């Protein structure tokens, strides 16, 4: 570690003002603060001292994503060989998936960080940590065979129009990772939905439809057992299939206090309640599906744990978080069951509620002010 510190200190003058690489100062700074707590000190005003800053927060989320990512890699291999009717050993499957996912991750980080550095330089900002997690989220919510150039275009779109036009990380209205996913979904629908995209290099005779895709067309014969849904042995986007791995990630987020339990809880509650309501209604087989299945299938758990809880785009007030989360869950299931074009509604429902989150916060605060004014009036009267 000492050698690293020395190395960084030695390189520092080159990147500071007047040095030969001063154009890359923001890039250098981002690397330095990744390894060490920044040595910059605020000079005025009162402030808290806390060991955790944005970079540390992001690293925890990153770690929480790892179980689902590793499982996703293995699952790609598993699904591929299953469709071929083969059953090789664990490592063959894992590395098959690993080599599928790695290029996607590399492209995402390359394009995303490249753009971040360009914008940071133009604006004289530091490179923001914001993309650190988005760059891992994006590969986890796309089908395994997504062409790399599409990923690059989508990441560029998400970084520029999802984030930088609003002023960079922390100022964005919608979640950048979901912006990338939504871009892909609408721009290249043939690579993003249907039966062909979820299993890489699938055998031709095999049906690669996801359970949600089957359910939407009224085919309930191949519905997997709840155990399979929970474990995630299903075709799907790279990191979303295994509810178990996502719950491990959720546990990490909750124990460290980084993820918000109110939002997670209310998203699941919203989804479950909506599923129950559909059961009461019960017009067709899809409405009669066990509400628990809704929570286990597709990207619901992933969205609830990693996407809806994004602290920038979610509601900020405690009461607002419950409303926000609940509506995310409700709308996700609504879209799934009702909209014949979209088998999965979590992405759209989170994006929609991202837009509404400030409004929810506004009314929560207004109602609180009104309540307190009323209390004050009564107190003054007595």
């Amino acid at each position, binding site marked *: 570690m000492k050698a690293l510190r020395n190395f960084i200190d030695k390189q520092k003058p080159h990147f500071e003002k007047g040095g030969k690489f001063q154009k890359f100062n923001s890039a250098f700074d981002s690397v330095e603060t990744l390894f060490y707590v920044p040595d910059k000190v605020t000079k005025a005003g009162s402030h808290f001292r806390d060991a955790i800053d944005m970079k540390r927060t992001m690293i925890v989320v990153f770690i929480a994503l790892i179980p689902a990512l590793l499982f996703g890699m293995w699952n790609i291999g598993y699904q591929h060989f299953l469709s071929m009717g083969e059953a090789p050993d664990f490592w063959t499957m894992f590395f098959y998936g690993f080599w599928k996912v790695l290029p996607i991750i590399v492209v995402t980080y390359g394009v995303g960080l490249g753009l971040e550095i360009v914008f940071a330089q133009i604006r004289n900002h530091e490179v923001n940590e914001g993309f650190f997690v988005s760059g891992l989220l994006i590969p986890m919510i796309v089908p395994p065979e997504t062409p790399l*150039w*599409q990923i690059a275009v989508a990441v560029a779109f998400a970084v520029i*129009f999802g984030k930088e*036009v609003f002023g960079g990380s922390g100022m964005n209205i919608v979640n950048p990772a979901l912006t990338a996913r939504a*871009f892909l979904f609408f*721009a*290249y*629908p043939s*690579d993003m939905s249907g039966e062909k995209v979820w299993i890489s290099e699938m055998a031709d005779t095999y049906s690669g439809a996801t359970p949600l895709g089957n359910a939407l067309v009224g085919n309930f014969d191949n519905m997997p057992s709840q155990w399979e849904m929970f474990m995630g042995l299903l075709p799907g986007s790279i990191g979303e299939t295994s509810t178990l791995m996502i719950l491990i990630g959720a546990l990490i987020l909750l124990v460290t206090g980084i993820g918000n339990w109110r939002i997670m809880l209310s998203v699941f509650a919203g989804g479950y309640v909506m599923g129950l309501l559909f059961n009461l209604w019960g017009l067709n087989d899809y409405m009669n599906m066990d509400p628990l299945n809704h929570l286990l299938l597709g990207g619901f758990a992933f969205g609830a744990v990693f996407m809806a809880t994004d602290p920038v785009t979610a509601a900020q007030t405690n009461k607002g978080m419950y409303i926000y989360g609940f509506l995310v869950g409700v709308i996700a299931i609504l879209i799934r069951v009702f909209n014949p074009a979209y088998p999965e509604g979590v992405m759209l429902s989170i994006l929609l509620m991202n837009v509404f989150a400030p409004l929810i916060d506004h009314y929560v605060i207004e109602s609180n002010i009104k309540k307190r004014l009323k209390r004050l009036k009564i107190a003054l009267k007595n």
Partner: protein
Amino acid sequence: MSAEVKEKEPLFSPKNLKLIKTPINLSNPITVQVLGICSALAVTAKLMPAIVLSISVVVVMAASNVVVSLLRNGIPPRIRIIVQLVVIASMVILVDQVLKAFVYDVSKQLSVFVGLIITNCIIMGRLEAFAMSNKPWPAFLDGIGNALGYGIILIIVAFFRELLGSGTLLDIQVIPDGFYEFGYKNNGLMILPPMALITVGVIIWVQRFYTRDLIEKN
């Protein structure tokens, strides 16, 4: 009297030319005043309808500006909006009939949007703000200028939307087949209306990058 005025002010004096130039850039109806957005979203999926609509708007706007400017002293202020609407509506009907007669296919694609030129806020706005209080010649130039400012943005947006969304320009394939064989796909999002809004946003961004005066100070 009129000869005197002409001596003082030639037809294309700098002041008159300014009437055409400023709406194209500095006070562009779409990117600066943000008017007429709805038709900009609706007809820009392909280049051809956008060009035809732009030309129609130029004609309607120039003609109705001149007519209203001629009538300006005879219009009672209380019913001026109705009079203006009647003038615009008759111009739009003329244009619509001409389109139906000569470019029927495009007119079918534009469908309701030719009729909706009537409600285009740019035209009403210019009639109210300029033609009602200026002579016919400046009013004519102002109409041309504003309609061109509108049309240019429409055509730029349509150019990018058709190129990226369908791989064609004026329905002629531009992106070579080799690209498609290599795995390139048309971007379906560009065909959808939201992308028109984002494209307009990008144009505003670029314009403000070059003309810094447009950036609001706050």
